[in-house]
């Protein structure tokens, strides 16, 4: 598997270098920031619909309602999602996807798998991505294939443009970009999976009470994703649910005295 993955990683890198990155750089130079932000928001709003569907599919009703309000507000008041008014109101984005829904119902990640063009994934998450693409909300907005394809290209280029500085940094600091990217992807995914699995239905946040320092060795069910023996010891990592930062913050502010642990809740926002 690693041989295929490394080869595909290389191909993706080359395609990116030859086509996507130059196009995205040109796009970034030519298109003013407000327009690019509008494009990001527009596709982000469609993405929120899919996140919301997965929130509900996972039984995370609070997150689902948050997504529902986000989409509602942004679609109605934000000119079909071009303006992200919800975020300004404090209704933040909580990305979710079908791979996490599969994980929620007990499906393990399977081996690490580099998808053609789309990059790092696992067998499970690649299946999730496939389902996500099939049900992409934009497919239901128009029957015109040319418009759909143009939108897909625009979304791709815009996303790549947003990532230009990140990938520049990655190229600098990674000794072996393949391994670094793989481990980063798997680590992030494990932390997301842990979050969606630990939340009860209707729960605003992960149920683990000790933060994430207490539970070292959380590799657990997803450890089989590693495709080389390089990282033999469990990583003591994981984090609060990236999918539910809002409600976490919220609940801490709402009921500091009811906090399940005895420690004082220190929650402060700076202007």
């Amino acid at each position, binding site marked *: 598997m690693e041989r295929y993955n490394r080869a595909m990683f290389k191909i993706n890198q080359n395609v990116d270098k030859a086509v996507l990155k130059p196009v995205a750089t040109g796009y970034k130079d030519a298109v003013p920031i407000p327009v690019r932000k509008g494009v990001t928001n527009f596709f982000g709003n469609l993405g929120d619909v899919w996140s919301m569907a997965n929130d509900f599919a996972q039984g995370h009703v609070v997150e689902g309602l948050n997504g529902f309000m986000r989409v509602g507000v942004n679609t109605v008041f934000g000119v079909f999602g071009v303006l992200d008014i919800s975020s300004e109101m404090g209704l933040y984005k909580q990305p979710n996807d079908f791979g996490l829904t599969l994980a929620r119902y007990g499906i393990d990640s399977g081996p690490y798998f580099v998808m053609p063009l789309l990059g790092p994934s696992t067998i499970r998450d690649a299946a999730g991505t496939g389902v996500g693409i099939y049900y992409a909300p934009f497919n239901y907005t128009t029957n015109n294939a040319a418009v759909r394809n143009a939108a897909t290209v625009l979304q791709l280029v815009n996303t790549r443009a947003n990532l230009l500085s990140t990938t520049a940094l990655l190229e600098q600091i990674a*000794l072996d970009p393949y391994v670094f990217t793989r*481990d980063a992807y798997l680590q992030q995914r494990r932390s997301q999976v842990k979050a969606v699995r630990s939340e009860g239905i209707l729960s605003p946040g992960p149920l683990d009470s000790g933060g994430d320092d207490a539970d070292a060795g959380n590799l657990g069910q997803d450890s089989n994703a590693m495709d080389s023996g390089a990282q033999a010891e469990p990583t003591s990592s994981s984090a609060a649910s990236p999918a539910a930062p809002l409600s976490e913050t919220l609940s801490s502010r709402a009921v500091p005295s009811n906090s399940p642990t005895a420690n004082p*809740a220190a*929650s402060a*926002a700076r202007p």
Partner: protein
Amino acid sequence: MFRTFKTALLLPALALGLMAASPAVRADTPAPVQVIQKLTDSVMDAVNNDPALKSGDPQKVMQLVETKVLPFVDFQHMTASAVGRYWRQATPTQQKELQQQFKLLLIHTYSGAVSQIKNQKVEYLPFRAAPNATNVVVRTRVLNNGEPIQLDYRLVQMDHDWKIADVNVMGIWLVDNYRGVFAQEIGQKGVEGLIQTLTTRNKELAQAGGAKG
């Protein structure tokens, strides 16, 4: 469950934008959280008040790191953790060398990140740890264009001071993430080989940075 319903009830309030009010820093803020607040404040202040720093001027960034960040970081812990089980096989000289090179690499990483600092708002999530814990996590959310970015810090207690041992950006622990790469490098070329690779990479980065500045 109680928490849950309160949360659900709060959603409409949220929609009205009542969340804008920010509670002041509490007097009983735990020490590790204070460390991160101090660090965050001083770095953000420095960057926002110095255009050269903001543009990522390598020398200025180095200076910032030396004076404002290094005092809060435990590089030995960081390096030992990234090198993992091989750490004990390394000689004291090699350990020192590894620490030095890893530090340089992280400083380069940090320089890249400094240029991204704007007027982001940082929120501190509730801090949870046992009263006598010596290894804790401070969780924050950086509000960047409205989309919250997870930024967590692992701190260890050294004597009386709390020092940063790892940083988590969007679910990825940075030092942890080097473990796989380092293990592979050591497996192929030994500890000396890893030191070589790091030194070469740092030299390249220094040259690239110098050319830019």
